[in-house]
């Protein structure tokens, strides 16, 4: 019995788990190895006798140096950070109020509004950028960080609103009723009681929004043209692939540095993040 169970655990748990982990983490490993691999190793064929595709014996930081000195990478990093932060904050604030209203206030058409907001999230960006480009041009925002700070919320607000609406609905309404009897206004009860209680949900929405804007590609590609103003995903791709030459080392170094902030944000808030998604509040 016991032996059989062990055997089953290997088949159904450990092995699938190992495959899954390998599958998810390998691209990151490949990125890291490529970033420190010297150029001669990068551009030699696999068939060569001395090829070591999965590791390198002479790690180098040359690609990082090249990336930081010859390209505008520090600028890109700063731009991405700033744009992601501002658009996340805008979206969170709007999402908190909209989510609260949809979850709690009964007004004519609230359900329709909720659905309508969700539908806007489903419109693909690849379509939406065309009218948005028009608007950006009319407002003379092209090639400024505001072009992205104001367009990212078009998909972040619906996302935050929906996530937070779901979270607010899990909070017992007696909490704010009690606060209102205790002497708070409706708005006061929302700010003093509901928002603090919803911190796990708000942080999850924030992390998601931050990641989405950090990784955003198409708007950043279209609305920003000067090299200085680009974000990391666009900058790396447009400046490090020249013609048909791929600067693999620098590309991967850029990707690696670009993913560190997101990883840090995740690991800081991972606990909140999990409770935020499962959403459980007990009195």
């Amino acid at each position, binding site marked *: 019995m016991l032996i059989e169970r062990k055997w089953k655990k290997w088949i159904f748990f450990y092995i699938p788990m190992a495959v899954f982990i390998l599958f998810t983490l390998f691209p990151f490993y490949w990125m890291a190895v490529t970033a420190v691999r010297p150029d001669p190793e990068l551009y030699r064929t696999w068939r060569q006798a001395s090829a070591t595709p999965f590791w390198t014996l002479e790690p180098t930081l040359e690609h990082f140096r090249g990336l930081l000195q010859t390209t505008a990478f520090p600028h890109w990093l700063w731009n991405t950070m700033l744009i992601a932060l501002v658009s996340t904050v805008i979206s969170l604030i709007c999402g908190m109020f909209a989510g609260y209203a949809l979850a709690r206030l009964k007004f004519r058409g609230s359900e329709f509004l909720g659905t309508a907001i969700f539908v806007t999230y489903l419109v693909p960006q690849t379509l939406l950028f065309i009218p948005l480009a028009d608007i950006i041009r009319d407002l003379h925002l092209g090639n400024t960080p505001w072009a992205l700070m104001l367009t990212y919320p078009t998909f972040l607000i619906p996302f935050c609103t929906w996530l937070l609406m779901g979270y607010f609905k899990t909070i017992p309404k007696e909490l704010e009723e009690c606060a209102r009897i205790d002497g708070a*206004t409706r708005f006061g009860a929302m700010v003093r009681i509901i928002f603090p209680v919803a911190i796990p949900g708000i942080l999850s929405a924030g992390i998601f929004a931050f990641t989405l804007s950090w990784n955003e590609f198409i708007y950043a590609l279209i609305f920003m043209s000067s090299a200085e103003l680009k974000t990391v995903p666009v900058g790396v791709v447009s400046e490090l692939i020249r013609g048909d030459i791929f600067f693999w080392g620098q590309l991967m170094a850029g990707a690696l540095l670009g993913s560190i902030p997101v990883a840090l944000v995740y690991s800081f808030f991972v606990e909140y993040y999990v409770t935020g998604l499962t959403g459980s509040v007990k*009195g």
Partner: protein
Amino acid sequence: MANVTIRNLNKNYENGFHAVKDVNLEIRDKEFMVLVGPSGCGKTTTLRMVAGLEEITSGEILIGADVVNDLPPMDRNIAMVFQNYALYPHKSVYQNMAFGLQMRKYPKDEIEKRVREAAEILGIESLLERKPRQLSGGQRQRVAVGRAIVRHPQVFLFDEPLSNLDAMLRVQMRVELKRLHERLETTAIYVTHDQVEAMTLGDRVVVMKDGWVQQVGEPLELYGKPLNRFVAGFIGSPAMNFVGVAISDPSGVLWAEAEGLRLKVPQQLVERVRPHTGKRATLGMRPEALHPVTGADPAEYCFDTTVDVVEPLGNEILVNFRAGGAPMVARVDPAVRVKAHQAIRLALDPERVHFFDENSGAAI
């Protein structure tokens, strides 16, 4: 300190549900008033309208001398204890209790004094720094009550505050609430679906059903003189036995008859039952008004039946049987030896007989 007056109160929900119908109540100063009834009877809605959490469709609510219909909850000087306690999960016990005072801008030392005082009354001084999730159900309940009493409100509102506790704790908290009310001398409105809670806590009890007030009265008044069949059946456990009977007057004496059951209408009811002669009525007998026959019982209040199930509870025995085509329960002394399927002759206490109109259910 204040009385609460409710005049012609109605609540219609947008979906057309008429939850509260023409409720009129006068809750006196310092009184403990209990609203009781089955779920959906409008008791909680009424309470929430007093609290200001629910809009009033029509009618008036006065706290003291002021009409509060349009006042927000914060300006009504009330405190409410919720069924799920509604403690603020991110605040400590102390902060939970202090919140209402902070919102009203009380000075710090006054807040401290009042919170300590309430904590002492409730025996939760040692828990003040804890968060709600670190407390047991009974402790949370105490904190919720403490949060209400620090405010020294004019009226306490309780919305089924004991429903989430286990049976033992519920009995204990019931006594504590009663003691607390005696000590604080504040008007209280208490909603429950548990008639035992209603009877033990209430100075007066309001029985509601389908949005209508059925009867208002002191607990023993409701028990002894129910105004209709619903109240008679709702108050008391086990519930009153009901059987449909025909009223007949063969020889100047009124009899209530059903299949296998023939009982004389007791003297004190004759005048009121006489107009129903020849019609049907509902006879109500409390389980405790039935007992096995002794020599002293007059034959016209006795009947024969067969025991169905026996529930020995220790301090009493519940005997289930059928009479007049209806299932019934008698509550008898534990010294009486009864077994299932045994034939038994039971007597009815003529002082404790009720008749109800067959159609309207009103007491005759």
